[in-house]
């Protein structure tokens, strides 16, 4: 039977000529990948539901009269025998291909210790090839509770070890929740006290995997009191791989809000030692733990400072690796959002000197932004702190960033500078101006962020006020700063702000224009009046970022 003619056209051949990156195909593949994820997640969701045993459906109440009478009454009752020869229960898969598996399952459930161990090892090997479908099969066979049982077989450490290993692997898959809920967690916590070091390591690993999943899993681990025995793992003679696992697990546990009954102090005692480690993995996880604690515990910042972690965190600012630098600087940014006394600790430990060096180097944007954020938070608190910023010579790199970097870094740098300018004394102002801050500050007036613009304006106001004082020393009687702004052409930017639909900005701009450049602007008849739209705009500006709030909010768990 001949097939339909294909008639390949010139276009299809042309499309196949020296194809480069095929956009349509790439797009389709992207979509397919998302579809595959979707299919997997749908199956996993359904599967999770199917795993839950149904609670006995309550008998139909008389009120449910709308249910038609076709419903067969459960008359057969428990006496009717199962119709299928297979239907003895969940553990008897007898199909040819599953034979190996069903045999393994039988062994697991047997009372023979050798069989149990043998099958557990087989399961562990099966799981090591990391295929989800294998995991599913094993879980479908309802064996998880059995492995949980094995964890308690203290007379058989090898069985404990293998069972913990199996559970570790499953917990690393999409089915963590099942491990968290199969009764294994309390036993794993118990195993943290095992005399066998390998078993302790394996249990740590399993718990770390469980805690790394969704909040409810982490809570299960915390509820079973894992923290104290986990902290007991940290001993002088620990091997590096074990220490890595333990640090990683600990940082997973610290993520999010810690329950009130968990004591932070002992955790911090350990972590503040770990941040002196030379191993980068340990160091990174320990720093992330600090980061999480700043956020996840009430008074977290104070706890972290109390544990004496600050000097080392500041030292680590000079670490070469970005993977360390990111948690370190994020933690410091958190601290910088604290109260004045807490910020003072940062200042005393020389944070600013390190930041000045760091800002001058070429680091990734995320790090530069956090650095600017810290400076800006420090510059908000007091004149002393502004002086510290000046003394550390952070201003020059900030101004450089303002001129040269990407827009979002610019924005952070502008915050730092305008905070300093708006709170600075007249000497400090003079210094800032001498470093060339006027022009970039004026340039920042064109940003979309209304809060930032307002702070810049406040900074300018403060500078201009200081200029009034300087004016008395000048023969010309001219405010030098107002003059400078006029000469560098920045006055236009101020004038443009009259068009902005924001009442507070409008008022301040008008005030500045009238106070310092009355002659230049008074002859402009087209000044728009403050209008009604101001109200609607205020709601918009409420959403804009606040200057003192750290921007990295990865750990905000409700």
């Amino acid at each position, binding site marked *: 039977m001949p097939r*339909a003619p294909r008639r390949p056209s010139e276009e299809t051949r042309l499309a196949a000529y020296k194809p480069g*990156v095929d956009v349509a195909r790439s797009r389709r593949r992207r979509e397919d990948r998302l579809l595959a994820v979707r299919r997997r997640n*749908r199956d996993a969701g*359904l599967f999770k539901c199917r795993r*839950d045993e149904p609670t006995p459906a309550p008998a139909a109440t008389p009120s449910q009269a709308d249910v038609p009478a076709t419903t*067969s009454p459960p008359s057969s009752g428990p006496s009717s025998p199962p119709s299928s020869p297979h239907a003895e229960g*969940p553990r008897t898969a007898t199909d040819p291909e599953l034979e190996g598996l069903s045999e393994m399952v039988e062994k697991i459930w047997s009372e023979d210790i050798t069989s149990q161990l043998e099958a557990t090892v087989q399961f562990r090997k099966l799981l090591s090839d990391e295929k989800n479908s294998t995991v599913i099969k094993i879980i479908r066979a309802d064996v998880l509770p059995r492995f949980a049982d094995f964890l308690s077989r203290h007379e058989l450490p090898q069985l404990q070890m293998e069972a913990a290993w199996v559970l570790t692997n499953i917990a690393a898959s999409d089915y963590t929740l099942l491990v968290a809920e199969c009764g294994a967690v309390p036993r794993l916590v118990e195993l943290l006290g095992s005399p066998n070091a390998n078993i302790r390591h394996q249990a740590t690993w399993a718990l770390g995997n469980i805690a790394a999943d969704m909040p409810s899993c982490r809570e299960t681990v915390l509820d079973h009191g894992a923290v104290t025995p986990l902290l007991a793992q940290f001993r002088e003679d620990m091997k590096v791989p074990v220490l890595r696992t333990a640090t990683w697990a600990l940082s997973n546990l610290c993520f999010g809000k810690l329950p009130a009954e968990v004591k932070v102090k002992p955790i911090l005692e350990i972590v503040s030692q770990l941040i002196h480690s030379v191993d980068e993995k340990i160091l990174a996880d320990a720093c992330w733990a600090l980061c999480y604690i700043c956020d996840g515990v009430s008074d977290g910042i104070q706890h972290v400072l109390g544990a004496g972690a600050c000097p080392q965190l500041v030292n680590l600012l000079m670490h070469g690796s970005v993977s360390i630098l990111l948690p370190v600087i994020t933690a410091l940014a958190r601290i910088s959002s604290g109260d004045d006394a807490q910020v003072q600790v940062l200042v005393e430990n020389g944070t600013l000197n390190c930041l000045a060096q760091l800002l001058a180097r070429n680091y990734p944007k*995320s790090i530069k932004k956090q650095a600017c954020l810290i400076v800006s938070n420090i510059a908000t608190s007091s004149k002393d702190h502004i002086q510290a910023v000046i003394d550390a010579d952070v201003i020059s790199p900030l101004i450089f960033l303002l001129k040269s970097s990407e827009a979002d870094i610019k924005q952070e740098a502008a915050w730092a500078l305008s905070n300093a300018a708006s709170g600075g004394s007249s000497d400090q102002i003079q210094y800032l101006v001498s470093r060339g801050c006027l022009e970039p500050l004026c340039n920042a007036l064109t940003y979309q962020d209304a809060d930032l613009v307002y702070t810049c304006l406040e900074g300018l106001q403060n500078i201009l006020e200081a200029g009034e004082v300087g004016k008395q020393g000048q023969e010309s009687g001219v405010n030098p700063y107002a003059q400078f702004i006029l000469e560098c052409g920045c006055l236009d930017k101020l004038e443009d702000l009259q068009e902005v639909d924001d009442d507070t900005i409008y008022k301040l701009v008008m005030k500045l224009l009238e106070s310092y450049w009355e002659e230049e602007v008074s002859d402009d008849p087209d000044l728009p009046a403050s209008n009604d739209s101001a109200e609607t705009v205020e709601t918009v500006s409420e959403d804009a970022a606040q200057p003192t709030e750290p921007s990295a909010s990865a750990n905000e768990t409700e």
Partner: protein
Amino acid sequence: MNRGVVLLVNMSLDVTQVLLSAQSADGATRKLAEESLKQFQEQNLPGFLFSLSSELANEEKPEESRRLAGLILKNALDAKEQHRKSELFQRWLALDANVKAQIKALLLQTLSSPVATARSTSSQVIAKVAGIEIPQKQWPELIGSLLSNIHQVQPNVKQATLETLGYLCEEVSPEAVDQDQVNKILTAVVQGMNASEGNSDVRLAATRALYNALGFAQVNFSNDMERDYIMRVVCEATQSPEVKIRQAAFECLVAISSTYYDKLATYMQDIFNITAKAVRGDEESVALQAIEFWSSICDEEIDILDEYSSEFTADSDVPCYYFIKQALPALVPMLLETLLKQEEDQDLDEGAWNLAMAGGTCLGLVARTVGDDIVPLVMPFVEENITKPDWRHREAATYAFGSILEGPSADKLAPLINVALNFMLSALVNDPSNHVKDTTAWTLGRIFEFLHGSALETAPIITSENCQQILTVLLQSMKDVPNVAEKACGALYFLAQGYVDAGSASPLAPFFQDIVQSLLFVTHREDAGESRLRTAAYETLNEVVRCSIEETGPIVMQLVPVIMMELHQTLEAGKLSTDEREKRSELQGLLCGCLQVIIQKLGGMESTKYSFLQYADQMMELFLRVFACRNATVHEEAMLAIGALAYAAGPNFSKYMAQFYQYLEMGLQNFEEYQVCAITVGVVGDLCRALEDKILPFCDGIMTQLLKDLSSNQLHRSVKPPIFSCFGDIALAIGENFEKYLIYAMPMLQSAADLSAHAASADDELLDYTNQLRNGILEAYSGILQGFKSSPKTQLLMPYAPHILHFLDALYNGKDMDDTVMKTAIGVLGDLADTLGVHAGPSISQSISSKKFLEECLASDDPLIKESADWARIAISRAVSG
């Protein structure tokens, strides 16, 4: 008195004048004329069609008005869009028989017109009418009366009639025409093609008609004598003095090669000689078709060999005759010669298609067909030419080498590539010809695509030693002219792809930052709009990110604000021209696609999963703004990105819902751009899984829209199965709260189930769709059943159980479900038992599904089906035993 005439008398419209005005240069006049034509058509269709056919037939009228009359007539009979098409068919069939008879008579009469355009237009209209009527067994005398024209002496009548027969074969399917009539048509057509036909217009029309009639000739091609005759006439026509006839004859050969591949064995030697002569000496349009013949034979043999090696069939309906393998020693040199006939700058001209391009394409197909055997035939050519001073030789050598990289085994190619790689790298930097560099970069890409990656068993061609050099060259080439840079991006794309499973051993990791920076640099090149360079750079960036390893996660993280800033900037642009807007949309689509890949990457790695979410707010804000720009592709990309973001953010995504919801609804309402609708439906599913019961406040709106979508006959059918699946997602997320939607959703599911239970069609495509629909329905049932499990309202589902069981039984009895449906269906059986428990036990144990169907699934080779079945068995045993 006949009605059509009455209506005509009432029309005072001067049709000729209106038709001429409708072609006026003056816009207003034209518009007015079009309006009155439209009005005429709406108010009096029979009169309208009759006037047009009279106009077309009237020799007194100007050529322009006749031509347009025919064109409008044609458009009143057919449309591209299926819906409209069947509407027009119905209207024609409903017309008064007398009117139709008059129109048809006028059309046939026009075939004898001395005016060529009138004849040609008329023959197209006749074919359209035939396309409607012949399947209905109407107009049985048409073919007879056309064939009687053939015997007329006048060549223009003959020509028009042959043309009509050709169009007719294009419009009508072969089943609708009796074999007896087919024989007559073919006889007439082949006679017209014969060298004895003195008029070349007639001969050309006949040759073109044969092209369309080939699909009717199955019986005739099975008969040796008839086939020999047709083949002889076609081959003779390839030698005609008229170039158009030669080209049309080769087009016939191409069509024959795919339609009657298995009947060609005895003619292959002759055909080779004919094609070789044409490739070497004929005009390009003819030579291109001659090459196309061999490409087409390759296509056939590749398909057959694929089926041979496929694990499902392990055989093919048609045996492979290995024509290419036999022709190889002569075919390859002929193709290699063509490679030297490049045009200057053909790589800069998007529409260019010439002998060298066609020859190289064919060579690539030959390599895929015969594998290793081609290598010794091509390599001497490569070695001889690759260092010659003339760029044409170097380019041809490189192109030949690049073309044979897919097909031959890695064992055969690896030693050659190990030698060639350094040469290629140096040529890519140093060759003075852009054309050579373009082809070299493409060849490198082919090397990486086919001979690099963890799946290969040979020793790796790219090692940690030469990887750095390769990268240096590629990154440098990305600064070259746009067409070369685009190919260099492509090479990098495949290089990265090959390391997708490399883990921390990926040798790209140390250079990751440089690679990303270089690609970003390319996207910002002023000339990135040429040769699709920008697009290639972004897609390559996506692939590089997708295949990256955990250790470079922080660098990917740094990319987030960069790409977001780019997207932000596209949104800030002021007033744009249409052209600029289009470019902006394209860029936005690329950026959203890039973010989508990044979200999936960072959201999927432990080390970045949480820290990455710091950008979620800003990202959502951008996506929401993107939705404000109306463009389907951008919507799709942004939607997909949001789906990915929802998975990464989980329940926290709920904070965006209030703002996002309006766009979700907009997407669900987008019938015209149905892909947007389909993707949005999928995203609803993503949201259900991410938000779980937090989706509840939005469900009324979503369900209303989904139900509307299902009831619409405007919406493309492919969206409907995912909508059903989406019901399941929603029910699973909100549990018993789905109660209020049951009275709407269940009847929809039931009627769709009834419709899809019996596909009753041999059409593969339709069966495929039916199975998708079944799967969607079943997923909905599973979701709803599991969603209600353990709820006091479980009883509400009892009334639906009999129908669901009935559906499952029907599917089993139908025997045409695919594996996916089987898996889902047996799962639903388990869900019924699981949720309804002892209440449904008796009806389940009475069903066929619980016996034969379940047993069959338990014995399935497909592990997924078996898993589902295992579970169902357990659930049923619980339900039955209470």
